[in-house]
């Protein structure tokens, strides 16, 4: 019966697509932060920062040393940055206008572009965080702005300007959980972590008996926590705070239990570029731009006053 066959052949892929789509939607509808990468609203930061952009510092022509990395960037007319597209409040693509990437890292990257070029001309290469070092070493990107924790091992492969932000790992649980109050209660528990975050190594150090489950992205990890794939989710405090602010099913418990110092990743051995960027950091910290960016992004989700930026060069490896 060739005719039945033909009909089937046409019908089945369509059915498959419909079923998949239906499954995908049912998965999403139950939770605002569904997989993959749904977005809490965060488009207010652009307006708040308009005046910062208008008055941003621009480097003296003399600072762009001949043959330096910054001179090459200036000649090229754009700054190539490795930054995430799915990290709320840090570096996230605006769902309603995908060309806009906003957040603490993203806005600082734009300010750095203004400092070098006079305009916020940034080309974004989304890094899988496992390839950040390779992107820098082979010259694909100029800088990495990716909540890139400064460590001495990483410093052997790349250079770090900064630190430009200090935060720490904290613990989130489901809102109805009352037995976990912080990292000390995680012994023997199932702990969800982001696949390429410091939590992967920090949690076993603090709680060797904890069982680690890792997921690729923050929205996946939040989904896994709300579905009960783990008892707790350990992630950077700022990220958890923004997750909890947009999702009432989870809450942050206790205080951060580590200190992470984030740096701007640069190609190894480019001392001139590193001191150029450190100069820029010093300037935006002194003129208040750093604080304004913080307030418009991370500060909107955290109930504490604007922090003091960490001292530049204060961490081993920076």
């Amino acid at each position, binding site marked *: 019966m060739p005719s039945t066959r033909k009909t*089937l052949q046409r019908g089945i*892929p369509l*059915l498959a697509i419909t079923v*998949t789509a239906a499954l995908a939607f049912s998965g999403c509808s139950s939770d605002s932060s569904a*997989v993959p990468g749904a977005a809490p609203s965060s488009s207010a930061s652009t307006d708040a920062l308009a005046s910062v952009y208008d008055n941003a510092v621009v480097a003296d022509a003399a600072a762009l040393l001949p043959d330096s990395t910054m001179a090459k960037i200036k000649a090229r007319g754009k700054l190539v940055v490795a930054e995430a597209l799915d990290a709320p409040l840090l570096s996230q693509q605006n769902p309603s206008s995908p060309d806009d990437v906003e957040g603490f890292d993203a806005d600082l990257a734009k300010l750095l572009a203004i400092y070098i070029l006079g305009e916020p001309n940034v080309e974004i290469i989304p890094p899988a965080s496992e390839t950040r070092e390779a992107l820098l070493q082979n010259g694909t990107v100029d800088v990495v702005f990716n909540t890139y924790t400064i460590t001495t*091992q990483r410093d052997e492969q*790349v250079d770090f300007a900064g630190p430009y932000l200090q935060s720490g790992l904290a613990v989130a649980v489901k809102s109805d959980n009352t037995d976990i109050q912080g990292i000390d209660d995680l012994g023997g528990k199932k702990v969800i972590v982001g696949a390429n975050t410091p939590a992967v190594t920090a949690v076993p150090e603090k709680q060797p008996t904890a069982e680690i489950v*890792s997921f690729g992205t923050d929205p996946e990890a939040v989904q896994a926590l709300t579905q*009960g*794939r783990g008892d707790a989710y350990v992630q950077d405090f700022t990220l958890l705070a923004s997750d909890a602010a947009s999702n009432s099913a989870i809450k942050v418990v206790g205080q951060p239990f580590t200190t992470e110092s984030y740096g701007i990743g640069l190609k190894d051995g480019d001392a001139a570029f590193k001191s150029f960027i450190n100069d820029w950091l010093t300037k935006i910290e002194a003129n208040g731009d750093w604080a304004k960016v913080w307030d418009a992004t991370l500060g909107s989700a955290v109930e504490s006053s604007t922090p003091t930026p960490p001292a530049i060069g204060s961490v081993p490896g920076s």
Partner: protein
Amino acid sequence: MNIFADSAGPLLEALGTTVMMAVIAGVAAIVLGTVVTAARISPIPVLRGLAFAYVQFFVNVPLLVLLILAVFALPDAGLLLPLTPTAIIVLALYEAAYVAEAIRSGVNTVGTGQIEASRALGFTLVQSLRLVVVPQALRAAVQPIGNVMIALTMNTALAAAVGVVELTSEANKLNLVEAQPILIFTVAGLIYMALALVIGLAAGRIEKRVAIKR
């Protein structure tokens, strides 16, 4: 090569998970794929239609989509399985569709005359499948099935995306500390290559032994 010596334990354990996933999902995919093919060539229209729908569904939806649906959507539907078994089940279901297609190509090598003869001898459907068609089809499809098994082994790496700690995920973890992606992923790639070579060679050996000379 210090960094590999220091983390040999977890790496071997992760390699063990990769091999275990490949073996269990591989055996399950071959069994299930054989059943699907049998249904596909049976004279019963409903069975044929179901088998056809099965193959089309799994061949046309990417494995990563299936894994993410199984891990994140099924719990919302009230079904929460541990991660590694979930990944193994999805892998087996997915690769079974490819195995079924490989075996179906083997079925085409079985002479129509033989099937007609078995029917003339009064074999039931199950008998003629079990005694005449499937054994010959499997023997003719050894190499294609071997290729599917290699693909399956490579595809276990996708389980890293949904939290299973296998070779790729362990390599990620190691790189997070050591910050040497090119070295670490080259080594991980070589391990996968070695696994693929073993499967390929084994398939070649088996084929030599069972091939039907025509």
